[in-house]
C-alpha cells in the first residue's frame, strides 16, 4: 500500500512538474526565434584616388619620379552574429525579410507599451568588420508588460561609434479605454560621456603665479615623446630660425612649430582628451518617467503615438557627479567651479506612426521618432505618398 501511494505521489509530482515546465516553456520560448546570421558587403571606397610621387631611388629629384597610389583600400566588410528574439510587431509593422538577422528596428523597442502582453526579449550579439577594423555590438532587451505594469531592462553597445547604453525601468500602467495608456515610474540610465568637461582646454589654460601659461601648448608634444630641435636655414641671403619636430622614433614629423601645431598636435589634443575621459567611470542616473501610448489600427488607417517624459528630478547614483551632466555648467576653462549648483534638465522622447490608405491605390504614410537624452538629439522621420497605377 505504501509503495502504491509513493508511486502515485511520484506520478502526480512528475505530472505537476511536466505541466510546470510546459507552462515555463510557453511563457519563455513560445513564438521565439533563434537565429544565426551574417552579411558581407563591399567596404567603403574613396571617391577620388589619392596619388603622390616618390623620388626615383635610382635617380635624383629631377629624374622621372615614381607615382604611388596612396588611396586607402580596405578588405570587404562583414558582420556575423547570433541571437534569440521574442518581440511582437505592431499590426502596422511588416516583417522586412523572411528571416531575422538582428538588424531589425521595431517600434516595440522604444514605445512604452508592447504589441502583446507578457514577456518579450531580444538577445543579440555580433562582430563586424568595417573599413578593416573589428567591432563588437550587442543588443539585450527584456520586457514584461501586464495590464498594470511595465518592467524593462536594456543594454546596447555599438563598437564603431563607441556607444554604450544601459537602462532599467519599472512603471505602473493605467489603460484608459482600449487604445490609450498612461504610465508612471522610474528609470535608470547610463552614459559614458562626461559633459562640459574638456581636459585639454583646462590643461592649456592653467597658469602659474605670474599669470603665464603653466603648460605651453607645445609641451604636450613632449608628454607624448615628441621633441623639437632648433635649426637655422639660409634662404635668399637671410638666416631663418625654426624648430622642427621629431616623433619618438626620431623621424621628422613637422618642419616648423606651425606645421606641428596644425597636424600632430591636433591628434595629440584628442588623444589627451580621450585618455582623461577614459579614466572616468560610467555614469548612472535615476529619473522619474511619465509615458503615454495611443494606438489605433485598422487595415486602412492606423495611428500610433507614444511619448516619454523625464522631468527635471534626476539623481546620479553612479560615477563622479562632478563630471556628470548635472554639473555640465560648472566647468570653465580654468577648471571646476564648486560654487555652482548642478542644473537639472528635461529629457523626452516621442514617436508617431501614421498610415492612411485613402483608397486601394492611394496611401499616405508618416513615421518619425525624436529622442532628446542629455545633450544628445536623435531623430529620424520619413513620409510617403503612394499612388498605385492600374
Amino acid at each position, binding site marked *: 500500500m505504501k509503495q502504491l501511494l509513493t508511486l502515485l505521489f511520484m506520478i502526480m509530482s512528475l505530472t505537476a512538474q511536466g505541466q510546470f515546465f510546459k507552462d515555463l516553456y510557453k511563457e519563455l520560448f513560445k513564438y521565439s526565434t533563434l537565429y544565426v546570421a551574417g552579411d558581407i558587403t563591399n567596404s567603403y571606397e574613396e571617391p577620388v584616388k589619392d596619388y603622390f610621387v616618390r623620388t626615383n631611388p635610382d635617380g635624383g629629384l629631377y629624374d622621372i619620379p615614381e607615382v604611388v597610389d596612396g588611396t586607402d583600400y580596405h578588405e570587404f566588410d562583414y558582420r556575423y552574429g547570433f541571437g534569440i528574439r521574442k518581440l511582437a510587431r505592431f499590426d502596422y509593422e511588416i516583417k522586412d525579410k523572411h528571416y531575422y538577422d538582428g538588424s531589425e528596428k521595431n517600434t516595440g523597442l522604444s514605445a512604452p507599451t508592447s504589441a502583446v502582453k507578457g514577456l518579450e526579449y531580444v538577445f543579440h550579439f555580433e562582430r563586424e568588420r568595417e573599413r578593416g577594423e573589428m567591432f563588437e555590438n550587442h543588443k539585450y532587451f527584456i520586457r514584461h508588460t501586464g495590464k498594470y505594469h511595465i518592467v524593462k531592462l536594456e543594454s546596447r553597445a555599438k563598437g564603431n561609434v563607441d556607444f554604450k547604453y544601459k537602462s532599467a525601468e519599472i512603471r505602473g500602467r493605467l489603460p484608459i479605454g*482600449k487604445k490609450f495608456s498612461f504610465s508612471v515610474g522610474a528609470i535608470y540610465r547610463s552614459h559614458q560621456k562626461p559633459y562640459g568637461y574638456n581636459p585639454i582646454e583646462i590643461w592649456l589654460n592653467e597658469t602659474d603665479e605670474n599669470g603665464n601659461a603653466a603648460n605651453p601648448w607645445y609641451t604636450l608634444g613632449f608628454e607624448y615623446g615628441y621633441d623639437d630641435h632648433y635649426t637655422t636655414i639660409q634662404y635668399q641671403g637671410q638666416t631663418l630660425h625654426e624648430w622642427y619636430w621629431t616623433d619618438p622614433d626620431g623621424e621628422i614629423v613637422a618642419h616648423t612649430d606651425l606645421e606641428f601645431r596644425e597636424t600632430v598636435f591636433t591628434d595629440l589634443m584628442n588623444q589627451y582628451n580621450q585618455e582623461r575621459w577614459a579614466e572616468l567611470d560610467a555614469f548612472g542616473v535615476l529619473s522619474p518617467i511619465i509615458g503615454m501610448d495611443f494606438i*489605433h489600427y485598422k487595415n486602412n488607417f492606423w*495611428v500610433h503615438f507614444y511619448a516619454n517624459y523625464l522631468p527635471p528630478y534626476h539623481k546620479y547614483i553612479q560615477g563622479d557627479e562632478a563630471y556628470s551632466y548635472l554639473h555640465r555648467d560648472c566647468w570653465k576653462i580654468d577648471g571646476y567651479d564648486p560654487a555652482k549648483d548642478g542644473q537639472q534638465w528635461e529629457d523626452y522622447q516621442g514617436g508617431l506612426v501614421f498610415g492612411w490608405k485613402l483608397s486601394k491605390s492611394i496611401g499616405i504614410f508618416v513615421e518619425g521618432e525624436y529622442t532628446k537624452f542629455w545633450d544628445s538629439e536623435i531623430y529620424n522621420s520619413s513620409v510617403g505618398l503612394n499612388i498605385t497605377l492600374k
Partner: protein
Amino acid sequence: MKLWILLLILPLYTLHGQNFKADISIVQFSAPFTSDAEISLKPFNDFHIYNFCITEKADIFKKEKIKFLPTVILYNNGKEIIRVESDITLSLPEDCKDTILKHIDKLIESKF
C-alpha cells in the same frame, strides 16, 4: 479647407467606429433565454471580451447577421476571423473554446 476638415473628421470617425471589433476581441451574442448555453469568456481575459444581449443591442445583432443564439465571434482589427454558432439544441460546440484559442494563437504567432 474642405480637405482639412475631411482629414480631421475621417480619422476621428474611424477611431470611434465599432470598438468591439478592435484588436483581438471575442464577442458572445446571446439572449436571456440562452444564458445557460453561454460559455465563460474568462479564458480570453488577456483580450477584449464582450457579452452582448439581444434585448439590449439588437441593432448590432442585425448588423452582424447573427442567426443562432448563442454565437461567439472572434474579431481582429475589425475583421471577423471565426464565428462559432450554436446548433438546434441551442448549445455551442464542445470545442468552441479550443477553436477560438487556436485561431487566437495563429493571430499572435503572426505578430512574431
